[in-house]
């Protein structure tokens, strides 16, 4: 089944989506922004959902936290899932805090056998509540750990194979982490199971010369477009979206960027068919 190309729904674009049909096949919503008691956020979500399929993308599940998952968070996530019936539900391979504290950041994990067991346990708990496979996204990172025993893509592969969860590959995050840690982005793309990849994110970052910061406040750069091209050649068609979280431009600008993703996908996939 194909789902086409999507955008992250942002409050700045509510009126655009309510006023007229927009050329996107689906919308991704930040789950946490709608896990509220009521008011305008949920009312807008319900109205826009009528005309667009949605996927849910969370930032606070903390799937790698040693303390386990927050049951109240899972309960609210499930309620939202039942409300909007998304195509799939994703979060990040990371942890956001331990011992009752929340750092509100996507903190990296050491890729150890112990962390693997923790993530497997937590993914299974989330999937038990959601009654569907969880989709996990790779995060951008700025540190690596001496204790790591495998690569990030080996770790993700193990999690997928053990739990049946799926992957949201953020092409920008692969590029950022590869630059910051000196690994080959092609190794990452070639290292995860093809059948597990459910979605691509495309986003921008900030280049600080000797390191990259995953800011999601710029347009997609040429290096990331090139990596997207490589990913399409390897995985074939994968539902793709532009993710912008800050300095949100007018919708037309994001739609134009999404058209570029469409053009690249058509070009690459038609070339594959011709070959």
């Amino acid at each position, binding site marked *: 089944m194909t789902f086409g190309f999507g955008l992250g729904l942002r409050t700045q674009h509510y009126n655009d989506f309510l006023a007229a049909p927009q050329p996107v096949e689906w919308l991704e919503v930040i789950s946490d922004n709608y896990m509220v008691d009521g008011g305008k956020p949920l009312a807008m979500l319900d109205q826009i959902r009528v005309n667009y399929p949605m996927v849910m993308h969370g930032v606070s599940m903390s799937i790698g936290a040693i303390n386990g998952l927050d049951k109240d968070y899972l309960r609210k996530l499930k309620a939202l899932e039942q409300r909007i019936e998304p195509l799939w539900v994703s979060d990040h391979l990371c942890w956001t805090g331990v011992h009752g504290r929340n750092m509100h950041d996507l903190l990296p994990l050491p890729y150890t056998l112990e962390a693997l067991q923790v993530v497997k346990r937590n993914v299974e708990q989330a999937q038990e509540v959601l009654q569907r496979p969880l989709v996990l996204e790779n995060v951008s990172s700025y540190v690596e750990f001496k204790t790591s025993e495998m690569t990030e893509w080996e770790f993700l592969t193990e999690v997928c194979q053990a739990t049946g969860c799926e992957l949201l590959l953020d092409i920008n995050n692969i590029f950022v982490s590869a630059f910051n840690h000196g690994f080959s982005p092609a190794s990452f793309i070639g290292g995860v199971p093809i059948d597990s990849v459910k979605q691509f994110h495309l986003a921008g970052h900030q280049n600080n010369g*000797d390191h990259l910061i995953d800011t999601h406040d710029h347009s997609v750069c040429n290096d990331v477009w090139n990596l997207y091209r490589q990913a399409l050649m390897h995985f074939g068609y994968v539902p793709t979206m532009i993710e912008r979280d800050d300095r949100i431009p007018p919708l037309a600008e994001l739609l134009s960027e999404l058209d570029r993703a469409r053009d690249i996908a058509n070009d690459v996939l038609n070339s594959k068919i011709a070959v």
Partner: protein
Amino acid sequence: MNLEDLQTNFQHILLDAECIDAGWVRESTRGLSSQDRLGIYHNAYRIRLIDVLLDTFEHTAVYLGDDWFHQLATAYVQSYHSTYTNIGLYGREFPRFLAEQLADDKEVSELALMDWKLRRAFDGADSTVMIHDDLQHLATAESGSIRLQPVPTLSISTQHFNTLDIWHAINQDQQPPVVERMAQPIDILIWRKGHSPHFRSLAKIESAAIALVCSGDTLEVIGAALEHDFPDVDVATEFGVMLHRWLDDEIISIPPQNVDVDARPSVQ
């Protein structure tokens, strides 16, 4: 180092005022040192939480000015850890923190509390509001058994200064008035009507009546209490006026089990 120790240590580095290096981070041969890499997370933690405070306490930030607000927000972030998965709740203690830090400028904490309550009303729980037609049901019931239910976003806060005027001036991009302590404190009603948070000041008798409604007292008890506390007022007439205004303002809701009419207006 096991995962629990690593996550505990990593979190300590983010929470501590100064970012230190850690022996468990792999030293890279390229780019930044391990301490600078940890510093990215250390800084991001503070920037993110201060941004949330700026967003939540918009009028307070304007009133204090960028530098002073940033200084106080930084001190708050260092003193209060977030225990919320919803980052929007992080500022819950900020008004109280400002009251402690700025003991001689209490209008600041009143302004912050108003910002906070308006923001919480924005995405507070929905309910089905009572409309004027429902008064017919009330008229046929015994006042000893009737209880009104406030909408879930309703709250009252008391202000001792001309904070309301300051809020209005900031909201209209005007110079705030000089702060003044009022002869009598006033109660401010805050709630959400439609999609928009609302507020207005309350007369003493209306504030008392709403407090009794919120306590779950019956109309009979409320009437008796108001007659006792406001002996010079025609309570029956005054209560009727207040009730009509409450329905216009949509601050009274109907318990879900009592909703028997289709297409009722809903507070969202």
